[in-house]
């Protein structure tokens, strides 16, 4: 295995593109190192992108936020602007692992690991986040939902890597939230995750996007759940419909972390609870 720490995006792409063997990009390393240690992945080249300028920066852009690929959970949590605009995305990243993991884990790493249970991915999808992909053909912008293609699989080509995430302008009346179910209070992988991003006019939901994690091979956008609450004041009936739509959309599996029945049921519960939190946050933003 070779370790390479390029100084520019171009260097990284050039070296990765010409590597005949297996390449892994390294930012926080909280997944890559585990795979290395277990022998699950034996890369020939590891490209550490942390020394590339901008990778650890958070910058305002078009009313939204551009977050470098190596920005850690701890760094994101300390950023008052992102926390104010996208608390659901921040809490989704912050839920991953321990204080120690937070010191290293990144949004982009969580995305590229392509786990169906990734916490921040449903939150980013609900937020309609985009990522910037650098590669041999230059840079392209891709919706977050376009990256994972299946468990452990991404759409990234040879020599390509993600350099940043873009969270769009939040705007008035917007609020998001992420909840997950885990058996313990910390340190577990989500059994079910649910992100809700919505916009209100007064108390009425005018726009919503709901995304479930860990109930399908990739994060699942549930349009029926969004439709169930748009035009409502998120009353009990709307929440109940939202929950039913979330449960109906689930295509989960039985595994060591949960059962089909459990995931299906709890997806609905989390959908309702996350929507209520997002709604409260949205209304708070309106009244500011």
């Amino acid at each position, binding site marked *: 295995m070779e370790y390479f720490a390029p100084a520019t995006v171009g260097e990284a792409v050039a070296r990765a593109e010409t590597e005949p063997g297996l390449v892994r990009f390294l930012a926080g390393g909280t997944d890559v190192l585990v795979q290395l240690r277990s022998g699950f992945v034996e890369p020939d080249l590891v490209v550490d992108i942390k020394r590339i300028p901008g990778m650890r920066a958070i910058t305002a852009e078009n009313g939204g936020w551009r977050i470098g690929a190596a920005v850690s959970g701890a760094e994101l949590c300390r950023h008052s602007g992102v926390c104010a605009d996208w608390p659901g995305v921040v809490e989704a990243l912050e839920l991953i692992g321990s*204080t120690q993991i937070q*010191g290293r884990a990144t949004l982009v790493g969580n995305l590229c690991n392509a786990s169906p249970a990734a916490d921040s991915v449903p939150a980013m999808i609900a937020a309609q986040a985009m990522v910037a992909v650098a590669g041999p053909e230059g840079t392209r912008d891709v919706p977050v939902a376009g990256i994972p293609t299946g468990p452990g699989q991404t759409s990234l080509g040879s020599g390509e890597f993600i350099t940043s995430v873009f969270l769009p302008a939040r705007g008035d009346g917007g609020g998001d939230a992420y909840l997950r179910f885990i058996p313990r209070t910390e340190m577990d992988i989500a059994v079910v995750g649910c992100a809700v991003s919505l916009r209100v006019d007064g108390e009425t939901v005018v726009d919503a996007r709901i995304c479930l994690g860990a109930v399908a091979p990739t994060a699942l956008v549930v349009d029926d759940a969004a439709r169930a609450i748009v035009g409502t004041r998120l009353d009990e009936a709307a929440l109940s419909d939202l929950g039913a739509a979330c449960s109906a959309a689930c295509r989960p599996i039985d595994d060591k972390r949960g059962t089909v029945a459990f995931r299906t049921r709890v997806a609905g519960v989390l959908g309702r609870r996350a929507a209520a939190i997002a709604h409260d946050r949205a209304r708070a933003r309106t009244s500011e």
Partner: protein
Amino acid sequence: MSMIHVRTTINGDATEFVCDPRETMLDVLRDRLALTGAKEGCGTGDCGACSITLDGQVVCSCLMLAAEAEGTEIRTVEGIAEGEQLHVLQRKFLEHAALQCGICTPGILVASKALLDENPDPTETEIRYWLAGNLCRCTGYDKIIRAVTDAAAEIRETQ
């Protein structure tokens, strides 16, 4: 396979080492630098026994390639006491019997110190969540929480 030359600072001392690209920071601390205070309990970032600070941020040294240490500042449990003067956390852990076997203690001290450096008056809940990545199988955490709380109080009184 070529080795990598790394320059870093550990517990305030300029340190150089060579390592295999596959070696973790924990491997190098323990096997090349004789700093065996950090422990490997899992190798996957789930237990926190290998906790160190990297540029002030508490991290698992098992989840960091040693090559990444270039140009950084690292602190380990061996750097907590100042000479013969134990850090207040170390004293409180002893007074409160906050360790039984002691294998998790280095990681918990490193993590607790990082907490108190950032938040000198944490609540019980804040301490518990901050330390959720530091597994202890002996104590049930009760005495650890008491020791950290008491250390924080003493630090606040003396500052």
